[in-house]
């Protein structure tokens, strides 16, 4: 479990999550990328779209 930095809601991180995976806050919709920390996962704001993204 991590806290959304936008709205402070709790974001569930499933046990099979991968570093680099995108998680979304179900309360406010903010997207985060999972990063590895000693005690499990933390989050940083995710880039959700880039000018050259897609397919």
């Amino acid at each position: 479990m991590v806290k959304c930095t936008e709205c402070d809601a709790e974001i569930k991180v499933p046990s099979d999550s991968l570093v680099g995976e995108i998680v979304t806050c179900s309360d406010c919709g903010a997207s985060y990328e999972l990063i590895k920390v000693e005690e499990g996962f933390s989050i940083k704001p995710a880039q959700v779209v880039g000018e050259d993204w897609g397919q």
Partner: protein
Amino acid sequence: MTEEKRSSSLSILFDSIRWEEKALYEAAKKRGIKINNIDCKSLFIDLNGRDPSPYTNKVIIQRCVGYFKSIHSTAALEGLGAHVINSLRTATLCGNKLFAHMELQKAGVKTPKAVSAFSQESAIAAISSLGYPAVIKPTIGSWGRLIALLRDEDASKAVIEDREHMFPLYQVYYFEELVSRPPRDIRAIVIGDRVVAAIYRYSGPGEWKTNMALGGHAETCPLTNELEDTCLKATRVMDGQVVGVDLMESEEHGLIVHEINNTTEFKNTVRVTGVDIPGLIVDFSYKLGK
């Protein structure tokens, strides 16, 4: 490279783990295949040749969603001996609408009529030669961004004037005919020499573009001989290994190919058709390493 022994593991190169990348990882894990997730954002590559390099004979599934990261990392890794799916040639051709158009038309694969121009003035003349309505597309771009429907010269002038203030890439003008078709297109997934699944993508409400990113919906599309033949021919032209072929059902010309995606998304195709596309991609990629 086929004569040499490749690695029995697989790597996925990503810049963001979306549904597709996670599904590939899970499919490999389920098969007991060693899988390395490589975050492109953490990667640095020594470009100076060593033989063997750390990438020699590695099979790498290229999944970077950012075009520029994808094409440059593919160039580096392929140059160091990796087998990247898809290759630099495929990525270069598929990633640029003008390049792709030229390859398709040379090979006789039906594709929308198009004109190109390289200045504001010649762009207006180019659209007039094609006829209105026409569609302006950036040569590089996805998800329907910066694609506009031009119904007359006033609209064209306004859009082109905007483009003149953008990065020079946007002053390479590429226009396509507006194809008369049902309000849908087709996304077909090709793996190796097989079309494994296809969906119809319907435009969202009030939208003429069919990109799923713009709110459209999808339904299963039957795999007809015509669809399979067209997709496989288009894939071979690009030397594609795992691609998403986008087609329109032209009222005048039948199936025409308007795009080939070298880092194709397939979440909606799996959801709608139930075909295990990630599993098939992993099986195909793993075999390349044997």
